[in-house]
């Protein structure tokens, strides 16, 4: 199927972009990083086309449905959102060094995705709902924002170590100042948090419409709540107790680990009602 070919191309492009950004940091060469940006933009176009094509192909197969309903599709959608988020940030903060930390997340996600079944399967009855669209899209945009935050938090921790040691050369010297990184860790979370909130709410609305219970403490639901609580704790620690810098960065990474657990771990490790993975 041609959409899968385009997704494979996307994977290669994400890999190339990651390598270019890392190379640019290493060689301290802005020009290389610019190639990285172009690669990301091209990858954005290709992956958007691939999603559209997959959607179209599902209609041709007579089972028309949104392409975010199994593990393969959700991973691909997540990587797509991370890439777009990254491009927005690169523009807004006018720094290409984030790419070395964020694009590998998209690349490894795609590597993981293409190991999964990529055929278009019809939807089982439980997934045939308009709520599915709203639920999956809001959740994954939220996850993507948290991924960006955690990537930047990792940059922060590296940079802060170096600033403490008062070195300003080397690869890390090229990273934006700590203040910018710290701000971005927070900013990505305040985008992710409302999306996750909306994702949990649309999930509850859907559950209510499908089973008559908006909350049943199923492991997937519960883990999304855990993620939500961790980020709520992050926001309060920051706003009212002035948690900045290192502690905030660590909390962002913890939040993202919880996100990964919610997204993949629950299906691979625990059992649940959701359709991704396991099988």
């Amino acid at each position, binding site marked *: 199927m041609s959409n899968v070919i385009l997704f494979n191309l996307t994977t290669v492009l994400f890999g190339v972009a990651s390598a270019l950004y890392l190379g640019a940091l290493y060689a301290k060469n802005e020009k290389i990083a610019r190639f990285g940006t172009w690669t990301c933009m091209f990858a954005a176009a290709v992956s958007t086309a691939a999603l559209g094509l997959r959607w179209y192909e599902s209609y041709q197969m007579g089972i028309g449905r949104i392409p975010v309903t199994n593990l393969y599709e959700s991973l691909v959608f997540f990587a797509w959102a991370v890439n777009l988020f990254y491009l927005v940030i690169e523009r807004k903060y006018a720094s290409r060094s984030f790419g070395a930390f964020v694009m590998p997340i998209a690349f490894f996600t795609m590597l993981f995705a293409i190991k999964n079944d990529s055929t278009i399967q019809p939807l089982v009855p439980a997934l045939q709902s308009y709520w599915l669209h709203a639920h999956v899209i809001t959740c994954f945009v939220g996850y993507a924002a948290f991924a960006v935050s955690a990537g930047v938090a990792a940059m922060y921790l590296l940079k802060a170590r170096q600033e403490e040691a008062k070195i300003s050369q080397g690869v890390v010297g090229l990273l934006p100042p700590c203040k910018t990184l710290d701000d971005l860790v927070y900013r990505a979370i305040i985008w992710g948090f*409302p999306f996750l909130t909306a994702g949990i709410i649309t999930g509850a609305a859907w559950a209510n419409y499908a089973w*008559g219970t908006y909350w049943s403490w199923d492991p997937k639901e*519960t883990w999304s709540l855990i993620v939500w609580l961790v980020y709520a704790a992050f926001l*309060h620690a920051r706003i009212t107790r002035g948690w900045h810098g290192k502690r905030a960065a660590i909390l962002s990474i913890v939040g993202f680990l*919880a996100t990964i657990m919610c997204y993949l771990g629950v299906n691979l490790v625990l059992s649940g009602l959701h359709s991704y993975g396991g099988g």
Partner: protein
Amino acid sequence: MVDDKQAPSPMDRVWNFFTSVKLAIITLIVLATASIIGTIVEQNLPVEKYHQIYEDWAFALMDKLSLFDMYHSWWFLLLLVLFTVNLACCTIDRLPRVLKVVRNPRTRLDEGLEKSLSLADRWKKKGTVDEWATRYADALSSVFAKPRITRGPEESEEVHLYAEKGVISRFGVYVTHLSIIIIFVGAIVGNVAGFKGYVNIPEGGEITKVPVRGGSRMQDLGFALRCNSFRLETYPSGQPKAYVSDLSVINDGHEVLRKTIVVNDPLRYKGIWFYQSSYGEAGGTTALVAVTRPDGAPVRMLSLAPGEPVRIAGYGAIRGVDYSGDYEGKGPALKVVVEKPGKPETGFWIFSTPGADAARKDSLVFTFGGLNAKMFTGLQVAMDPGVNIVWLGCALMVLGIIIAFFMSHQRVWLKIARGKDGRVEVVLAGSASRNRLAFEKKFERIQTGVKAVEP
């Protein structure tokens, strides 16, 4: 509030405990951790299962800690109560202060305030204070917002302009916090005044009561629900495509509502919802019979269990009594018996050829649709009068978060005073409650706009 000098009284200490954000953060983390446990220890399994998984001592300990139904245990509920009280106290503690600040903003740019603001600019002009005050007030209205004007103190020649935008961003937090309490209220209303149940109805069967989940109680519906038929549709690959139940609501002997439900499309009547949830074979077979008018207009599909009469309103009762795989060379056929009020029973064979039965010249025409294994449909049943309160809370939560995160309370002050050298001294200052970087740019525009004013 606590006086700095004296030791806090016990009451104050309790109050400080419940209004502290530290407690909130700890509660959030503890709730998260407890929830993790609840996803690792599988909840609400039969007791034998737990005995298989855990050693006796571990079982005893976990049972004591209610870890097998953790989310309904007393200590988890206590955590939720603590969380709610904390949230309510925090709001009671802070909201009045915010209201006060919003109602009585600092409209005068005194020295203390000026020093605390990082965005400030000062310049001098010739002319009178009043002239410039009017000009700057107009300028500020056009580049930012209409200012309030304060004069004085009496002895000095001084005018203060104060303009603000996005005051409601101060309330985003409270809308968010209130929404959590509203959601809890909705959940409690649902638990107290609603019920959840599950019921199986065989094809052709009827129920008026539903066993309530987690109890031995039967909930009376106040009406009857009939399952006319159940059907499983599959994709060409054999995967299930749809579970379809044809349901009728019967009130006082009349069918008042009929709906074909599938997963994700429930039936609702008098606040009670019926959700397609499961299915199975009920044992036995049924015969499908399509009922039409002589002109071919469909009336209904019947699912006849052997020998059991089904009533058709305005017609009579029909029952299936015999089946033949090939009756007189005309294909599969069903023998039915029709009973009309005040008339003797009549028996005849019906076939799968459409319209063949019209030869009987009756007011209804029957066509045999084949034999079916008799199925039952499994329905989740729910009544939750609190659910709309929950949705209200959810909507407010999203709204509150957006207000809190993406709106900013922006304030601009302009002080115009007579300086010692006789010229007019102007001070412009501004602040924003969040997203300061964006506000810096905006402040530059305000600066340019205001300074461009000429007599």
